């Protein structure tokens, strides 16, 4: 194994006309992730490099970047997999770049509450008055979708979101599904009202890349297609049944 690997990192300072690429040689160690490489650059080569990171264990969802063109959590992506290099490290696609590898995810933060990703009940009683029991099978129904860490890799991988930024997007829909499948929840109808719109589930053309890049194996594409079936059923019922029967 070579001693070092070249990292080709996107640089952008607010006010620049376009981002540029800068090359850095970093030590190539078997246990070094791409994030370790970036930390090396910041500590030893160029302290002005900006990027987000926190936990280094694939749970905070901060360090998502495009590595060799594919959205990845850089803390879980190893430099040695890209040897001999150079390895391209770019900001997540489909988001405006704030600086270097930092992107602006405000759009997602505005969209997420629209699908009401929390348990909705109209007969709320506190846990002192009542237990909300759930069997292991019922937990299993939504557990996969609750693993989402909002890392935005799915949005970066989704060409639909890139072409139509109004699309509510994979993670938001997967999180809506997470609460819909929860037996304690009663908010299905409210969420469907948002997701049945064109910018909701129908924007999705089932490219499936969101599921492929998800580091937590959430399968947003599956959630969206299941919603489409639901939304289609709802439309047929609305057509067949008289007003107010639903």
């Amino acid at each position, binding site marked *: 194994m070579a001693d070092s690997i070249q990292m080709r990192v996107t640089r952008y300072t607010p*006010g620049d006309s376009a981002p540029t690429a800068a090359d850095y040689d970093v030590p190539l160690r078997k246990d070094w992730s791409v994030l370790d490489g970036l930390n090396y650059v910041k500590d030893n080569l160029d302290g002005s490099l900006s990027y987000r990171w926190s936990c280094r264990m694939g749970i905070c969802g901060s360090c998502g970047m495009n590595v060799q063109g594919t959205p990845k959590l850089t803390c879980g992506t190893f430099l040695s997999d890209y040897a001999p290099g150079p390895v391209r490290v770019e900001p997540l696609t489909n988001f405006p*770049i*704030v600086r270097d590898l930092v992107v602006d995810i405000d759009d997602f933060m505005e969209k997420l509450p629209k699908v009401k990703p929390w348990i909705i009940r109209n007969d709320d009683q506190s846990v002192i008055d009542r237990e909300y029991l759930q*069997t292991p*099978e019922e937990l299993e129904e939504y557990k996969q979708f609750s693993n989402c860490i909002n890392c935005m890799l799915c949005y970066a991988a989704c060409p639909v979101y890139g072409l139509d930024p109004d699309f509510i997007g994979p993670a938001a829909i997967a999180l809506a599904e997470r609460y819909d499948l929860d037996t304690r929840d009663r908010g299905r109808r409210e969420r469907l009202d948002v997701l049945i719109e064109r910018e909701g589930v129908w924007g999705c053309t089932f490219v*499936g890349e969101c599921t492929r890049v998800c580091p937590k194996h959430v399968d947003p594409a599956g959630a969206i*297609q299941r919603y489409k*079936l639901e939304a289609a059923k709802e439309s047929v019922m609305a057509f067949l049944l008289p007003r107010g*029967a639903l």
Partner: protein
Amino acid sequence: MSAPTTYRQPVSRLWWTKKWTYFLFMMREFTCVFVAWSVVFLLMLVYAVGRGEASYRQFLDWASSPVVVVVNVVALAFLVLHTVTWFALTPQAAVVRAGGRQVVRTRMVHVGGRILPAATVIRVGGRVPAAIVIASQYVGLVVVSAFIAWLVLR
């Protein structure tokens, strides 16, 4: 303080050539053209048959011309791609369950301003593995094809 200037990354018109999975997706979308062609071809065949033997023979002559044969071979390849890719995607979209028990739940719902009880049947059972869902579609395809073959050839 004014908002910082951000750079919006443009999406290339050729985004679908950048990655094999994007390309395969585009090809899958493109298959709809050949599905439509196959429907038109079939309707033309039915129409020709309906108009008598001479018309049918004329259709067969046209259908065996090199251009139509090439178009149909390409169409067949795209139809196979269409079938294989959509069958492979079905388990993601459709949750099929087998076995397990059924639980009937009653809850109150608002209907036209009144509150009425509504029963929901919840099936708690194992999800059928993806491979079985996919395989069952191929079995269905074979059964339907055999039935049509029997209908036409008997």
